[in-house]
């Protein structure tokens, strides 16, 4: 069955356009950063980074320094005795994990998260996870993944985490009825909205990965089809396919158009007829378009420049170009996954400058030369660019805010409109 959704006729497409590939200084977070939202999403999971003081400091700084409740993450900081072999790193890890589990009896799932130093000294966390699982089962399951900055960029940490969960998912029997799995951490409210939409379409059962509770792992098998809710889930998708699940290619559910095509991919896989699909989605589409319209006066015709950050850049650019008439100056992304982004690239205006990787100083030169109306960039660059007179939207907020689906489409537009509104309000230079 071909479930590739129809592409709107106005699309010209960027599918085969040349991409500017850069290899210089990258100004992006490493994969450890994903812990900031993952530890809130899976409510009884704990993330133990095995790394250096830098890792500990990165996570607490990126998290805005303080989260009020005691966080469900920590770092086992390697010291010189661990490196010099005076301590057996595995014994040390066992001791740290025992202390942690004693302190936090609520933990059901523990992730050992690899870092740059643990990768370089080749500390085998998969063996450690196996050993610790045997020691602490059935109370706690121990898994591992790498969030190291030499292997992962920002959101790839979530990909690695979800991929590590997949071998532990229960197997759905070969004769199980078709089920839909949605991969990618989402705000609870977005999940709840979609559960209602899928129920109205008659699609079910629907499961989410990651689950809110460590023991509510979704079953997976040959009758599972899955949608990606996020564009950075390369390894997760592959691992799901290895479990027999089938990927439903679609654009990503950002904006009205993305959400419709994404839902449509599921509807077609489950044989939902067009009349029902329209009946269920039309009111939401209408409402979302009305809400988005409020921001078009601010955004329409404005020129936007994306620095690479979360891999959400291409879907976001598509949304801004097609639903808000913004002009794309450059769309930078840390990694351009051609397969998962195929539908997105087809929807981008022809001639869009795409860049992959980064050489931050050269990219800043291009940005200054172009003087865009809005720059989407990371926290390290935002204030310096503001001080130069450019208007910025810091991109990490796009990860921390519910933005997917119809009801959030206008909120997403508002995130881009706010810096421009703010600049217009301020009468101080």
């Amino acid at each position, binding site marked *: 069955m071909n479930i590739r959704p129809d592409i709107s006729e106005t699309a010209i497409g960027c599918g085969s356009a040349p991409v500017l590939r850069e290899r210089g200084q*990258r*100004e992006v977070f490493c994969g450890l950063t994903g812990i900031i939202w993952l530890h809130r999403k899976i409510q009884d999971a704990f993330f133990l980074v*095995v790394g250096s003081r830098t890792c500990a*400091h990165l996570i607490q700084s990126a998290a805005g320094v*303080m989260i009020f409740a005691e966080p469900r993450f920590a*770092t086992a900081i390697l010291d010189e005795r661990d490196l010099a072999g005076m301590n057996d790193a595995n014994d040390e890890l066992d001791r740290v994990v025992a202390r942690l589990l004693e*302190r936090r009896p609520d933990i059901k799932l523990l992730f050992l998260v690899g870092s740059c130093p643990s990768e370089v000294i080749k500390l085998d966390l998969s063996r450690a996870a196996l050993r610790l699982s045997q020691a602490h089962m059935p109370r706690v399951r121990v898994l591992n993944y790498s969030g190291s900055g030499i292997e992962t960029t920002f959101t790839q940490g979530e990909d690695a985490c979800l991929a590590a969960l997949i071998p532990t998912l229960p197997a759905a029997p070969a004769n199980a009825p078709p089920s839909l799995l949605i991969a990618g951490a989402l705000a609870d409210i977005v999940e709840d909205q979609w559960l209602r939409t899928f129920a109205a379409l008659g699609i079910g059962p629907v499961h989410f990965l990651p689950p809110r509770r460590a023991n509510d792992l979704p079953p997976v098998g040959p009758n599972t089809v899955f949608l990606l809710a996020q564009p950075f889930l390369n390894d997760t998708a592959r691992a799901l396919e290895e479990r027999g699940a089938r990927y439903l290619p679609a654009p990503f559910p950002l904006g009205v158009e993305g959400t419709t095509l994404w839902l449509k991919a599921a509807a077609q896989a489950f044989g939902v007829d067009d009349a029902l699909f329209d009946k269920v989605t039309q009111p939401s589409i209408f409402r979302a378009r009305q809400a988005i319209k409020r921001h078009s006066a601010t955004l329409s015709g404005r020129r936007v420049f994306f620095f690479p950050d979360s891999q959400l850049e291409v879907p976001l650019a598509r949304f801004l170009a097609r639903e808000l008439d913004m002009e794309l100056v450059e769309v930078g992304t840390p990694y351009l996954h051609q397969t998962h982004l195929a539908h997105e690239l087809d929807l981008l205006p022809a001639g869009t400058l795409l860049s992959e990787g980064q050489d931050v100083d050269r990219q800043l030169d291009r940005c200054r030369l172009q003087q865009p109306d809005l720059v989407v960039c990371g926290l*390290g*660059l*935002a204030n310096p660019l503001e001080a130069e007179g450019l208007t910025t939207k810091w991109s990490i907020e796009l990860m921390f805010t519910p933005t997917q689906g119809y009801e959030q489409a206008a909120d997403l537009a508002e995130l881009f409109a706010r810096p421009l509104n703010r600049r217009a309000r301020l009468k101080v230079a």
Partner: protein
Amino acid sequence: MQLTVWTYEAPPHVGAMRIATAMEGMHYVLHAPQGDTYADLLFTMIERNGKRPPVTYTTFQARDLGGDTANLFKDAARDAYERFKPQAMIVGASCTAELIQDDPGGLTQALGLPVPVIPLELPAYQKKENWGAAETFYQIVRTLAGPAASAGAKRERAAGARPRCNLLGATALGFRHRDDVTEIRRLLERLGIDVNVVAPLGATPSDITRLGEADFNVVMYPEIAGPAAQWLQRTFGQPSTKTVPIGVSATVEFVKEVAALAGVDPGPLLSAEGSRLPWYSRSVDSTYLTAKRVFIFGDGTHALAAARIAADELGFTVVGLGTYSREMAREIREAAAKYGVEALVTDDYLEVEARIAELHPELVLGTQMERHIAKRLGVPCAVISAPVHVQDFPARYSPQMGFEGANVIFDTWVHPLMMGLEEHLLAMFRDDHEFHDEAGPSHLGKTAQKPAAVAEAITVKPATPESIVWHRDAETELKKIPFFVRGKARRNTEMFAQTKGLPLITVETLYDAKAHYGR
């Protein structure tokens, strides 16, 4: 391997970044993977700098490890020089690059750049942020100011020339460093002492070469400027100040100390109006501050100063004193002994949390970490030290040092507390539905009310000895004691009952214990 929930200090290369970012015309080339670029946001977001830190990261990846990471470093260093044209460069490695041993110093020397290049060895698995800042500043000073010394430039002040000093230790991302520099400059100006160089904050490499021209050094933050000041003393015979002017008494001592070093008369300055703190503290409305039980934790310099101010200038009782600066453990232990408390020298946040819970202070003076703990325990808190938060960079002028610093400290510490008569009313009418037991200070609004439930599964409550039972009436009476001292009252009563061999605690026992332990 150490289990760490929050860390007080960053790794040492972030200390080096604080020096480089404080300076002008300096550039730092750091061999580090991409994740380490997070450190830029400390400066651009927390401190709201309008410029990127002057740091180039090599951002090597796994695929580079098999290949030539050394060349990657050389390219980065060469490109950084070409693009930024700094007057001098510092080069080094972060934790991961330390493991691959590429020798950034040697690689950069080989490039033959036309500016001084200062290699840094900052052992990331052993040392921390403040040490890294101190070592970096020391290496910069030694390398750049050294040539003047070997040229035999030991200076004598010309007759009639005004005395000159350097202000050392202020960095980027420091706790109120910017305003402290302004305040100390003003004090020195009033004494007739010129400032030769302020460093590292605002200094260029060429300013550093002139450090030897001063008569003496003001060491503002010993954790950072200590090693450099010692070297300057050895090399140029410049004495250093020992007093850190935080608090009224310390400021007066500081004025006398610099006046003596400079050979000027401190009299006019000291007889002019100083801080409002002494009068505010003596004024009768401050009576309610008497013997408030305070717990103090921070970097060495600020914790020591806070303890002295708390005890001598506000009339508090210091019930706990600690630091995460192991470099200053000895000084902290001496001070703690003076206040009759056990010093807490640790960088383990969990240990600090347990100690605060155990001591039941009425006020916590700490870092953002302790603010976090205090909020959870429902205890008022004021922040006295780094690690910093965006709130520690207020828009208004708010130094910690000098007479104005003492004014700022008086306001900052007293504000979170319950005002005098309010505390009495609360004690008298504690069942009042608006003005009850767990109400916070009314001037802080609703948000200050009720301590949040102690977080998820953390139990720090000391257990009641099993042999002792509380009578119901005594339990009820205990609840009438304000919540922030209730734990202490419970423990004292139980301790009293245990020493007296009483199996049942009655209302009478409660009051006997109160009389026994009373202030």
